[in-house]
C-alpha cells in the first residue's frame, strides 16, 4: 500500500486538536477597555486540570473518522505493478541508436554524435541495461544487451564507449524508419520471449527507451515507420545533431546519375545522346549557386579537361549534360600543372582507343625523349566543387558499353525475306551495340561456327535437316532463336524441333486478324503491361498460320502461348529447348504479312528483348552503396566454367563462388570491376541520392509515423515524475479512496446515533454531553 499524496496524512493531526482544545482552557475572548494599564502586568494563561474525558467512544469514533478522511485524501493505492521499480534491478532498458550514414560525414556531425552518445552514457545508472546499435540503411548491433549483461558492471560502459569510438560513418544511405522499427521490435522481443517462457524477470517491466542520435535528415526514410506498429512501452528520445551553429556551412549540392537516353526516346535532347546526363541538386537553404563539374580519376581531377561551370539556384535541381571524358595521356605526374603537354586519345568509344594525337608541345625528338613517361588517365568519376560538403560530390560513372554481337538470319532471297531482314536490322540499329547480320539461305547453310557466334538466330523458312540439328544443338546450349512461320507446310519440321507430334497448321481465313490476348508477364511483352502501351488493335495481320497444338503440349508446358489472335490461334509461342529458347511467330513482319513493322513501339522492343538469353541476368552498371548486384549466371556466359571475381575500388579482388547469384559487398562508392572469364564489366557504386537530402527534420515528426516520443528521464527528478504519473494512473484505476469515504460516512452515521443517544440520556438526567 502506497500513497499518492502522503502529505495529507498531516491532516490526521487534526484529531489532536479537539483533545487539545478540551484540555486547554480557551484564551479569553472578551475585551475589557481600561483607562490605563500602568498598574497592570500580564497574567499567564492557565492550564486547567480538566483532563477527564467523558465519552471516550464518541471521541474515538470522531478521531477515527478524521484519520480515515486523512487516509482517503492521501489517496492510497496497491502497488503491485510498480513494486518491481523498488527492486535493486530497477532501471531502464536503453537502445542507443547512432546514425552512421554517409550524411554524418558532414563537417563535425560525427564528433557531435559521439559526444552526445558519451554524454548520454554518463547519465545511465548501474541498474540500466544499454545496447548500442549503429544504423545506416541497415542496423548493425554493436553491443547487445547480452554482452552488456555478461560484462563486468564496471566495464560495461567502457566496452560500449570503445565500440562507439571504433565506429565511423559509412557511405550508405539512411533508413531511419526501418532502423527504429527494428530496434523497437528487438526491445520488445526480449519481453515476449521471456513472457513465453514464464520467466518474469525484473527487466520485463523496465521502461524501454530508444535514444536516437542522428542528423535527422530529410532523406532518412523515417516514413517507413508508418507501416510499423510501434510498441506502446517503448519511448523514443531523439537527440539530433545539427550544423545550426555553423552559419557558413549551408550549401550542399549533389550529383545524381540519370538513366541515360534510350535510342528510341523521343526527347528534345536527342542530339545529346553521347553526353552524360546527371542531376545536379542544390539543396534549399544554401547560400551558393555556382558550381563546377570536373572529370577525375582516383588520382584526382584530370588536367586538361576544362571543368563545366554550372549555375543551380538553391532549392533547384537540374539536369546537366556533360560530354563523356576521353582517356587522356598525361606525360607528367598528375600533380604537374595542366599546361603540360597532353596527349589526347582520339577514340570513338571508351573501350577501344584507336589512336592518339599529341597536343601542346612541338614534336621535337629530344623533348619527347626527355619527357616523363606518359600515362593514360581515364576519367571514371565526376567531381562537383563549390559547395560546403563534399561527401556526396563524387559521382562514379561507367561509360556506356557498346556490345557487339552477330545475328544469324536464315531466309531466302525472296521479297518477303529481304523485307523481313531489313526491318529486323532496323529494329536492332542501336548505339548500345554493334550488330552484324549473317544471312544464310538453304543454298548456303550456316555452319556450326555461325551458330556459335550468333546471339540470335532468326528463321524465316524451314531449315534443312542438318541446319535443324545445328539449331537444336545451339538451342540446347542456351541460344535464342526466332522462327517466323512462313507456310503451313512447316508443321512437321516444327514438331520435330519441338519434339511434339501432331501439330496441325493451316493458313488462316479472313481478311485480317488482330492480336487479342497478350501475356505481359512474358519478358518479351513485359513493356506492354502498362495499359497505355498495351494496345495492339492497330496492328493488322493480313496472313497468319493457325497452329493447333496437341492438348498435352501446352498442358505439359512444352509450349507456352504468349500471344493469341482474335481467332484464339497462337501468334507467339515460346518453347524451351535445353537451356535455350525458341520463339515461334505465326505471322511475319514483312509488309505483305502484317503491319507489325509499322508499329515500331511494339516491334522494336520485342525484337531487342529477344536478344536476351533465357537465363541471362542483366547486369546494370549503376548501383548505390549496399545495393545487391545481381551477377550474370555462370551458365549464360560463353564459357560456363569461367571464374568470376569482383575487384573493389580499394583493389581487393573477391572471387565469387560459382553458385553466387548476388554480390553484397558494395560498402564504399567507387568503380567495382566484375570479371567474368576474360570480360571486364565496370560497375559504378555511388552514395544513394536520398542521402544528399540533408535538410534536417524535426524529431517531433517521428510521432507522426507512430513513434512514441518522450524525453529521456535523464535526471532522477524526471524519473520521479514518470513514477508519479504511473502511480497516479494506478491510483486512478483503483480508487480506494471511495471505499474509505464510504467507511467514514458509515462511521459518522454511527457517531451521530451514539451522540444522539448520549445527548438524550444527558437531557434526561440533566447533564450536558461532552466528548
Amino acid at each position, binding site marked *: 500500500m502506497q500513497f499518492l499524496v502522503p502529505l495529507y496524512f498531516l491532516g490526521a493531526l487534526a484529531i489532536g486538536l479537539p483533545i487539545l482544545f478540551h484540555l486547554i482552557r480557551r*484564551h*479569553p475572548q*472578551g*475585551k*475589557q*477597555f*481600561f*483607562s*490605563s*494599564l*500602568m*498598574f*497592570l*502586568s*500580564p*497574567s499567564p*494563561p*492557565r492550564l486547567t486540570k480538566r483532563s477527564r474525558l467523558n465519552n471516550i467512544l464518541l471521541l474515538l469514533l470522531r478521531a477515527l473518522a478524521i484519520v480515515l478522511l486523512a487516509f482517503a485524501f492521501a489517496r492510497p493505492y496497491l502497488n503491485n505493478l510498480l513494486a518491481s521499480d523498488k527492486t535493486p534491478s530497477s532501471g531502464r532498458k536503453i537502445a542507443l541508436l547512432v546514425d552512421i550514414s554517409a550524411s554524418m560525414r558532414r563537417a563535425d556531425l560525427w564528433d557531435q554524435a559521439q559526444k552526445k552518445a558519451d554524454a548520454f552514457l554518463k547519465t545511465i545508472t548501474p541498474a540500466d541495461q544499454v545496447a548500442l546499435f549503429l544504423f545506416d540503411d541497415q542496423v548493425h548491433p554493436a553491443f547487445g544487451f547480452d554482452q552488456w549483461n555478461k560484462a563486468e558492471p564496471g566495464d560495461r560502459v567502457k566496452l560500449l564507449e570503445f565500440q562507439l569510438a571504433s565506429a565511423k560513418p559509412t557511405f550508405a544511405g539512411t533508413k531511419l524508419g526501418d532502423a527504429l522499427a527494428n530496434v523497437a521490435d528487438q526491445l520488445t522481443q526480449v519481453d515476449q520471449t521471456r513472457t513465453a517462457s514464464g520467466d518474469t524477470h525484473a527487466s520485463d517491466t523496465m521502461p524501454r527507451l530508444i535514444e536516437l542520435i542522428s542528423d535527422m535528415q530529410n532523406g532518412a526514410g523515417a516514413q517507413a515507420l508508418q507501416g510499423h506498429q510501434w510498441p506502446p512501452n517503448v519511448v523514443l528520445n531523439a537527440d539530433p545533431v545539427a550544423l545550426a551553429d555553423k552559419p557558413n556551412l549551408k550549401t550542399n549540392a549533389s550529383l545524381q546519375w540519370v538513366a541515360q537516353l534510350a535510342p528510341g526516346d523521343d526527347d528534345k535532347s536527342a542530339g545529346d545522346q553521347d553526353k552524360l546526363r546527371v542531376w545536379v541538386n542544390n539543396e534549399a537553404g544554401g547560400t551558393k549557386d555556382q558550381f563546377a563539374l570536373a572529370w577525375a580519376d582516383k588520382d584526382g581531377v584530370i588536367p586538361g579537361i576544362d571543368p563545366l561551370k554550372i549555375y543551380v539556384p538553391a532549392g533547384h535541381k537540374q539536369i546537366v549534360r556533360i560530354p563523356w571524358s576521353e582517356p587522356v595521356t598525361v606525360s607528367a605526374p598528375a600533380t604537374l600543372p595542366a599546361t603540360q603537354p597532353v596527349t589526347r586519345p582520339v577514340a570513338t568509344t571508351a573501350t577501344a582507343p584507336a589512336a592518339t594525337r599529341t597536343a601542346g608541345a612541338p614534336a621535337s625528338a629530344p623533348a619527347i625523349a626527355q619527357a616523363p613517361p606518359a600515362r593514360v588517365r581515364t576519367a571514371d568519376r565526376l567531381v562537383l566543387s563549390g559547395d560546403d560538403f563534399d561527401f556526396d560530390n563524387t559521382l562514379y560513372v561507367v561509360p556506356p558499353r557498346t556490345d557487339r554481337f552477330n545475328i544469324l538470319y536464315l531466309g531466302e532471297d525472296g521479297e518477303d525475306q529481304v523485307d523481313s531482314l531489313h526491318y529486323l536490322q532496323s529494329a536492332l540499329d542501336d548505339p548500345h551495340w554493334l550488330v552484324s547480320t549473317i544471312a544464310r539461305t538453304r543454298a548456303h547453310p550456316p555452319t556450326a561456327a555461325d551458330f556459335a557466334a550468333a546471339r540470335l538466330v532468326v528463321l524465316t523458312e524451314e531449315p534443312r535437316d542438318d541446319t535443324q540439328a545445328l539449331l537444336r544443338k545451339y538451342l540446347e546450349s542456351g541460344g535464342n532463336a526466332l522462327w517466323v512461320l512462313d507456310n503451313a507446310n512447316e508443321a512437321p519440321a516444327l514438331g520435330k524441333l519441338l519434339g511434339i507430334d501432331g501439330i496441325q497448321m493451316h493458313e488462316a481465313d479472313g481478311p485480317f486478324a488482330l492480336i487479342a490476348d497478350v501475356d505481359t508477364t512474358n519478358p518479351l511483352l513485359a513493356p506492354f503491361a502498362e495499359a497505355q502501351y498495351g494496345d495492339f488493335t492497330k496492328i493488322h495481320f493480313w496472313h497468319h498460320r493457325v497452329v493447333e497444338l496437341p492438348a498435352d503440349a501446352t498442358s505439359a508446358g512444352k509450349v507456352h502461348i504468349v500471344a493469341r489472335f482474335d481467332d484464339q490461334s497462337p501468334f507467339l509461342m515460346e518453347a524451351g529447348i535445353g537451356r535455350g529458347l525458341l520463339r515461334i511467330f505465326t505471322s511475319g513482319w514483312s509488309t505483305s504479312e502484317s503491319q507489325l513493322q509499322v508499329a515500331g513501339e511494339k516491334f522494336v522492343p520485342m525484337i531487342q528483348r529477344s536478344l536476351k538469353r533465357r537465363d541471362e541476368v542483366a547486369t546494370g552498371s549503376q548501383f548505390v552503396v549496399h545495393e545487391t548486384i545481381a551477377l550474370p549466371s555462370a551458365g549464360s556466359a560463353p564459357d560456363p566454367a569461367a571464374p568470376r571475381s569482383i575487384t573493389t575500388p580499394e583493389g581487393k579482388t573477391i572471387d565469387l563462388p560459382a553458385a553466387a547469384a548476388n554480390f553484397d559487398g558494395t560498402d564504399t562508392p567507387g568503380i567495382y570491376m566484375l570479371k567474368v572469364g576474360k570480360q571486364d564489366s565496370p560497375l559504378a557504386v555511388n552514395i544513394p541520392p536520398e542521402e544528399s537530402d540533408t535538410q534536417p527534420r524535426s524529431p517531433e515528426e517521428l510521432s507522426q509515423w507512430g513513434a512514441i516520443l518522450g524525453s529521456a528521464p535523464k535526471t532522477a527528478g524526471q524519473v520521479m515524475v514518470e513514477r508519479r504519473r504511473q502511480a497516479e494512473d494506478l491510483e486512478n484505476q483503483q480508487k480506494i479512496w471511495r471505499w474509505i469515504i464510504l467507511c467514514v460516512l458509515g462511521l459518522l452515521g454511527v457517531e451521530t446515533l451514539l451522540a444522539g443517544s448520549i445527548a438524550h440520556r444527558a437531557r434526561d438526567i440533566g447533564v450536558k454531553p461532552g466528548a
Partner: protein
Amino acid sequence: MKSAFHSGMTIEGDERRGAASFIDAPTLMRIKSLEMRARIVVQGFLSGLHRSPHHGFSVEFSEYRQYSPGDDLRHLDWRLFARSDRYYLKRFEDETNLRCYLLMDLSKSMGFKTAPYTKADYGRTVAATLAYFLSLQRDAVGLVTFDQEIGDYLPARYRPGHLHRLLVCLERAEAGTSTDISRALEQVAMTVRKRGLVILISDLLSPIGSLRSRLSFLRSQGHEVILMRILDPSELAFDFDKPATFVDMETGKDLYIDPHVARAQYQAKFGTHSAEIEKIANDLGVSLHTFSTAQPLELALFDFLQARMHAGRKVMRAGGRGTTGEMGGGDAGDGPGGGG
C-alpha cells in the same frame, strides 16, 4: 467682589448631605445640556447656602490704621480726622475679581466608564458647575482642555457669552493617546501673569514625574492650585471578575489580565501612585480632592468647598496673618465668610 470661595459661606455639610434635594449623578448626567446640568447643580447647591452670594459684593471696609509718616495721604480718612482730629488710614478689602482657570483633562482615559457616564462627563459637569458658579459671582473663568497637547484655551474673562463658549469647549470629545498634565500647567504658567486659581480636573492616571515641578512653579507664581481627581469606582477597587484582554484606552496596548490574580498588585501600585500624588499635594500646599464618579456631584462640590474652608482656616492659622487684598487666592480665606 468677593468670590464665594472666599466669602464666608457657612456650609453645613452634614445637613446638606442629609437633605433629599440632591440629584444623583446618573440622573443628572442624563441631562444632555451641560449648562443645564451646571445650573441644576448650582441651584441646588445655592439653595442650601445660608447666605446668598449676591450679598457678598460691596466695597467692604476692613480696618483703620494710624497714620505714620510715609503713608499715602490718599488713603487718609478725612472724615475721621474731622471727627477725631487724628490721622487714620482707611483700609479696604481687595476688590479684584477672582481669575479662575479650569484645566480639563480630555484624554481618552477620561472616557472610561463602568457607570452610565464617563469620567470625562463627570469632570465636565464639575467644571461646568464651577464655571457657572463662578460666573454667577462675576468671577473671570478661563478654560484649558488638554490631552497630550493643549486642546482649547480660553482666557479667564467675565463677559456675556463667555460662559457659553466655555461650555461649548468642554463639550469636545475626549481624545489623545496619552495625558500630559505638565504641558497644560506650563501653558497656564506662561500665559497667566496675574495670580489666580487653577483647578486641574483629571484622573491623574499618568506618570507623575514632572507634576511636582510644574505645580511648584505655579505655586511659586502665587497661584492657588486645586487638584480634582476623578476616578471610576472600578479604578479604585479593580473589581472585575472575569479574565479578559485589557486594552489601554489611550495607547491601545492590550494585556491578558486575570483580575483575581492582578487585583492585589493593581491596588498596591495604585495606592502607591495615589500616595505620591498626595505627598506632592501636601508638600506644595495644593489641595487634592478625589471624586468617584459614583459620588453625587453636589456632594462632591460640598466636600470640595468644605475642604477648602478647612484648608483656608488651616492656612490662616498656620500663617497667622491674613493676606493682603491682592492675594485673591483661596489661601487667604480671611473674608467675612471665613469668619463665618
